[in-house]
């Protein structure tokens, strides 16, 4: 329960940052996705999947026009990360950042495809940098800090590490 509260609170903080401070920048990172990757790496599949779904729903409240859009992408990302967890080592920050890079690229592709089906307009080449490359790189860069911060928070609250 404490875990769920920590993640939901972290989700709210992430969304606060994304809707305010990061909104002044030309590209914004997807901090909620970093939380979902964290859930996929370190948590039980059932609680993790439900939390990833809830974090996606929370993102739907503050972004986009379709309820369930980010709930779908975040849940899928969770299961993809969870499926790699037993197969690869993600001990170093670099490896975790690499996984975030893959996860955010997969989510971006999913969003791109979903938008192609649900929206009349098509994404034009000038938008690619701002919508695709920028957020992917920015999210990957901030991911190690988010992991470290979340680990510290969890140690403080639960008196235990992430791994």
């Amino acid at each position: 329960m404490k875990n769920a509260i920590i993640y939901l609170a972290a989700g709210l903080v992430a969304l606060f940052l994304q809707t305010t401070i990061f909104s002044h920048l030309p590209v914004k990172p997807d901090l909620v996705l970093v939380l979902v990757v964290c859930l996929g790496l370190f948590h039980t599949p059932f609680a993790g999947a439900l939390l990833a779904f809830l974090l996606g729903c929370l993102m739907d409240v503050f972004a986009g026009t379709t309820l369930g859009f980010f709930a779908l992408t975040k849940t899928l990302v969770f299961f993809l990360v969870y499926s790699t967890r037993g197969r690869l080592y993600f001990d170093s920050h670099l490896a975790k950042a690499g996984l975030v890079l893959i996860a955010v690229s997969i989510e971006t592709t999913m969003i791109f495809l979903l938008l192609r089906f649900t929206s009349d307009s098509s994404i034009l080449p000038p938008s690619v940098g701002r919508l695709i490359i920028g957020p992917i790189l920015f999210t990957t860069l901030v991911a190690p800090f988010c992991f470290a911060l979340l680990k510290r928070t969890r140690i403080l609250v639960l008196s235990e590490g992430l791994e």
Partner: protein
Amino acid sequence: MNSKNATFGKKYRLLILALVLLLTSFVMISSSTGQPFRLPLFPGLFMEILSPFQRVYYGSARAVRDLVRRYVFLVHLHQENEKLRKLVVDLERKNAELAEMAIANERLRRFLNFKKEIPKPTLPAEIIGKDASSWFRTITVNKGSIDGVRKGMVVVAGAGLVGHVINTSRDVSRILLITDYNSSIDGICQISRARGIVQGKSQDLCDLNYVSRQENVSVGERIITSGLGGRFPKGLVVGTVTGVEKKPYGVSQKVEVTPAVDFKKLEEAFVILDTDQPVNQ
């Protein structure tokens, strides 16, 4: 037999959960695609929780910016004073010209039997947040259902059309900007009277689609709302034509529109509370 069932349950429990969650997402998407969603109590609650922090952030950001403008830039005050004096002279001249134009305009309006329309009631709202993702173009304002804001209401700024309300909670509302991919508005070119659909394409730009090749749309022409569709009243300024591309084939031409409102600098907007009446042009 029982242990076999338990193994089966354990093995497929995660798969069932995944299917349930993904199916729920699809149901949510299909039920809200094509129409703005109504926030249920639970998500609305999260919007309410975050809104005081967003207000504090935008309030402090404005205070800091004002402080910097007032005190740090005092160094250039003398040059700025000189510049402003010249500007005052220019503005006074322009003001006199505009007053003359207003009189002429009024005379012509009367001459053409234009009906004087009553302005609609509007509600000023401050922007307290922007979209959490890079994909969509929405903003959050500090007025909600308690202030009379309802889903579908039109939002304008001094320069022109901003968008429309897609969902509301008690104290805050979210606005879909005209530059979002999901935004479609029936528009008319003010001079050529060519009609088309203004669709957002992010990057703070829009396209006027489905404009016939026969129409002579020119760069610099203003695009206004046509009033068709019922949501947007007729005559609201959408933007200006900044590019026209006629290919040797096809039935329509490509018209690029720059919105009248600068969304990067947008701080306040007005929610039109009643959309049934036509507005002043």
